[in-house]
């Protein structure tokens, strides 16, 4: 059933939750459009929010491929995010204490290499551990990484952070100067006019970048998780002993899944560094880890669509609390905490649990028809 050929059938095929989310997304988009048109939301800031949502979507896609598919309780998301950001920053920034000044693409590769090393450093000791030990050990090792980044001034500038990070498109043909060359557009007149100028085009480029990252990761993950490799991961998640009994090297599979997810998280860090143009040890704070966990369990563990949805909700909480008349930081914590408790109490599978999306469409059998005759009405022992 596809949306274009049979919209009505597509709609009736959706579950109640999917319908609810679809309506919510449409309403949310309408509200955003309304505030954009009335000037309540500056277009450049809106694009910044879209970029952040894309970044959280990347992080949740990464965590989803570890927790959602292989059942790995990774509490070191912030460390991979931070190592991605620091990797590209240290390679490309003018204020970098080690290399510096390299093209951002080299920074991207450096970040991915660093993330792979960190994934092995954390994964090799911890992936053999029982689930809850893995949670504790990984958050401990993530803290070790944060302490090192904060204190090794000679490598990372310590608590001062790294400044002078170029935009991701610096050194690229055309794209580097595109924001300056595009015309300045003015809608309306007077002080309330909407001006689309170079910062807006720059933000648009950034959004394009993160959407490209998200799209790429989404396609790779969807392909990977529908493949035999993904099926082994799902088996490991539901019953690791069974997977081992079937002759699978579960440690190896978990390691592959862990590295893959970590690379995607590092990609989010790379985008963040070139969006924010400044990184500091605060970016490795464990709260990021828990934001991403909320995004994944809210969306539905194992569901890539859910990860996208969760990413948007997290940004709505993070940025929406700024508008409240009270101190934003504790309100954010409170919302996150309440969401976790209420979700786990009433809907532990998440809002959009994975259903058909894990399986190739052609392999789904239709539900067998109930035979008309020869079927007992009740099972033995039932009243």
């Amino acid at each position, binding site marked *: 059933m596809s949306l274009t050929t049979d919209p009505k059938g597509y709609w009736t095929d959706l579950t109640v939750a999917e319908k609810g989310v679809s309506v919510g997304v449409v309403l949310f988009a309408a509200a955003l459009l309304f505030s954009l048109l009335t000037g309540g939301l500056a277009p450049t800031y809106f694009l910044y929010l879209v970029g952040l949502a894309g970044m959280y979507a990347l992080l949740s896609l990464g965590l989803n491929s570890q927790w959602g598919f292989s059942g790995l309780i990774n509490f070191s998301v912030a460390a991979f995010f931070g190592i991605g950001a620091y990797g590209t920053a240290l390679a490309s920034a003018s204020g970098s204490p080690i290399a510096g000044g390299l093209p951002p693409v080299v920074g991207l590769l450096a970040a991915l290499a660093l993330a792979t090393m960190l994934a092995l450093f954390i994964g090799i000791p911890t992936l053999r*551990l029982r689930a809850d030990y893995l949670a504790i050990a990984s958050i401990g090792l993530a*803290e070790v990484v944060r302490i090192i980044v904060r204190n090794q001034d000679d490598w990372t500038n310590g608590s001062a952070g790294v400044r002078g990070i170029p935009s991701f498109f610096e050194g690229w043909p055309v794209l580097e100067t595109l924001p300056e060359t595009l015309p300045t557009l003015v809608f309306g007149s007077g002080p309330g006019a909407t001006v689309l100028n170079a910062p807006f085009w720059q933000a648009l480029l950034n959004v394009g970048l993160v959407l490209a990252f998200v799209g790429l990761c989404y396609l790779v993950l969807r392909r990977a998780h529908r493949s035999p490799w993904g099926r082994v991961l799902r088996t490991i998640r539901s019953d690791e002993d069974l997977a081992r009994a079937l002759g699978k090297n579960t440690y190896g599979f978990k390691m592959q899944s862990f590295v893959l997810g970590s690379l995607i998280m590092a990609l989010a860090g790379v985008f963040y560094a070139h969006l924010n143009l400044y990184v500091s040890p605060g970016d490795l704070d464990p709260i990021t880890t828990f934001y991403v966990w909320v995004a994944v369990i809210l969306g539905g563990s194992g569901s890539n669509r859910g990860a996208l949805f969760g990413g948007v909700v997290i940004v709505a909480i993070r940025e929406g609390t700024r508008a409240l008349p009270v101190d934003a930081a504790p309100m954010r*914590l*409170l919302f996150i905490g309440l969401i976790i*408790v209420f979700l786990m109490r009433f809907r532990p599978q998440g809002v959009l649990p994975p259903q058909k999306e894990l399986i190739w469409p052609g392999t789904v059998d239709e539900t067998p028809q109930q035979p008309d005759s020869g079927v007992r009405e009740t099972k033995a022992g039932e009243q």
Partner: protein
Amino acid sequence: MVLDLLASGLVFSSIIVLGSIGLSLVYSIANFANFAHGDTMTIGAYTSLVTFGAVGGLGGSVLGLPFGFFVALLAGIAVAALVAVVTEKLVYDGMDLDSIGLLIVSIGLAFIYRAVIQLGFSAQSTRYGIQALRPIEALLPYGVRVTQHDVAIVVSAAVLVTGLHVLLQYSDLGRKMRAMADNPDLARVSGIRTDRIKLWTWVIGAGLAGAGGAFLGLYSQLTPRMGFNLLLLIFAAVILGGIGSVYGAMLGGFLIGVINQMTPLLSQIGIPIGIEYADAIAFVIMVVVLLFRPNGIAGEAT
């Protein structure tokens, strides 16, 4: 130098031990790693702050601490225990989740506790209105710089730990708790009312955490993050001792506290690792223990 570090290690250990026992007790009975335990300590600390502000000095003092502080300490213990019981009744009770699900729920609870405290008291650090003391003169010739407050922390922790030991070994409740930690199903069919024992476990565990929090506020200062910052050290202690074992938690807490304070010795013997890596060392110890001796020093059972 070594004696001084050992002494401050002993003081810090006392706080860690109070935290670790509760975490270990709850792990052995409710069977999950409670990430809200650190913030339970924060609750104890802030309750003591409010109570001490209300009752004030109350006349005399022991070891440089006014009587009012001990009233505040009891209030901290009581409120931390009360919050834990309410949480158990309101949230955990009736949840059909595995140990991982409960772990995630406890993270949510940790955030709720911390958010409420931060809304009430702001994120700024604060202190009890108790004057800081000079180190005890008699110990200075040995190079040991501890205050009477430090002595009070160690003595109070020792009293609480001894009390718990007596409770576990010689009381009916203690025997039932040990039975339940060993095998909950067997305990239930033997006629132990496991729900009630679970509630008492929360009371004792959270009460000790509340006391640890109150002392942590006296040892350094109070911030809404104080308990969460200590949580990983407590996990390290509990894992080192053997998760689920109360006596292991005591031993692990003592070792982690002393090792943490002894870090400056490393640079003295030529290893260039500064005090800023003290926590990192504890976390690495934790991972190494998990790898090579996952049952800890004392083993799993109580």
